[in-house]
């Protein structure tokens, strides 16, 4: 497996700016409409390899194909009512995908129906 070095470096730099005591140092907002998703220090930073469907699937894909990317930085939220504003999609396999509650941009993360825990991808949101 070859790592995309530039991205990794950027993410590493970002993490120290955004994470304090293992939690999100800043308010987490939607990248597109700035709707508030999480208050400061309400989610735990975790590193895990997990695929998420792309926000923009493009028009060149085959019918039924879902383009995904591997992401490894997430915020873990163990109770859905910790979210300020968030949308849950219908179930796909054992997940519900998470979206901005206002503009519905997404997925910004996923909700695991087994554990009932939610994960927000750092690269899909805005820190402010």
């Amino acid at each position, binding site marked *: 497996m070859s790592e995309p070095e530039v991205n990794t470096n950027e993410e590493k730099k970002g993490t120290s700016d955004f994470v304090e005591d293992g939690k999100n140092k800043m308010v987490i907002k939607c990248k*597109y*409409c700035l*709707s*508030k998703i999480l*208050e400061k220090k*309400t989610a735990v930073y975790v590193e895990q390899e997990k695929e998420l*469907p*792309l*926000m*923009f*699937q493009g028009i060149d894909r085959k019918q039924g194909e*879902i383009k995904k990317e591997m992401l490894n930085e997430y915020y873990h939220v*163990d*109770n*859905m*009512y*910790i*979210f*300020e*504003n*968030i*949308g*849950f*999609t*219908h*179930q*796909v396999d054992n997940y*519900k*995908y998470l*979206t*901005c*509650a*206002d*503009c*519905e*941009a*997404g*997925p910004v993360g996923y909700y695991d129906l087994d554990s009932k825990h939610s994960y927000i991808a750092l690269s899909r949101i805005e820190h402010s």
Partner: protein
Amino acid sequence: MAKKTYDLLFKLLLIGDSGVGKTCILYRFSDNHFTTTFISTIGIDFKIKTVELRGKKIKLQIWDTAGQERFHTITTSYYRGAMGIMLVYDITNEKTFDDIVKWLRNIDEHANEDVEKMILGNKCDMEEKRVVSKERGEAISREHGIRFMETSAKANVNIERAFSELAEAILDKAAGRDADPDHARIAVERRPSRAPPARACCS
């Protein structure tokens, strides 16, 4: 135990015929909307929104029927635990207004009897296509003793206000149940000065 980040949690439902704009009511129209094909294909099940009312942080869990209404399969399980219901019709479609009575019966049959209701006449930005007058909306709401508002999800008229008022009504009811009449009365009296002036849509 994790610190609780809110004071109250209200479960709300959106009900009404297909095409009245229930899904749009849950969606903030702006220049920045980004509903992607992936999300719109799967569809939204419910949303959590946070509002502040009288110094209390309230989480609203808002459910959309997501097309179940087409098959008349809205049953007890959907209504379970609901504390508030937004009953929506389309001011440009007579049938959706006529069906309000049918939906009210469905609610009576399946929902908790003290569920707080509000009727919304949606799409009030489409004045040129209007077939249901505001007066008729007001009349049916008065008849059933239910709050009423005309809204436009598209022009963002009265949407937030509708959710706040429904949440306030549930809050009032909860306050009343707590056998604290003084508190409830003060709360009700405070409302007019706190509510933003109604926007002059659809009049």
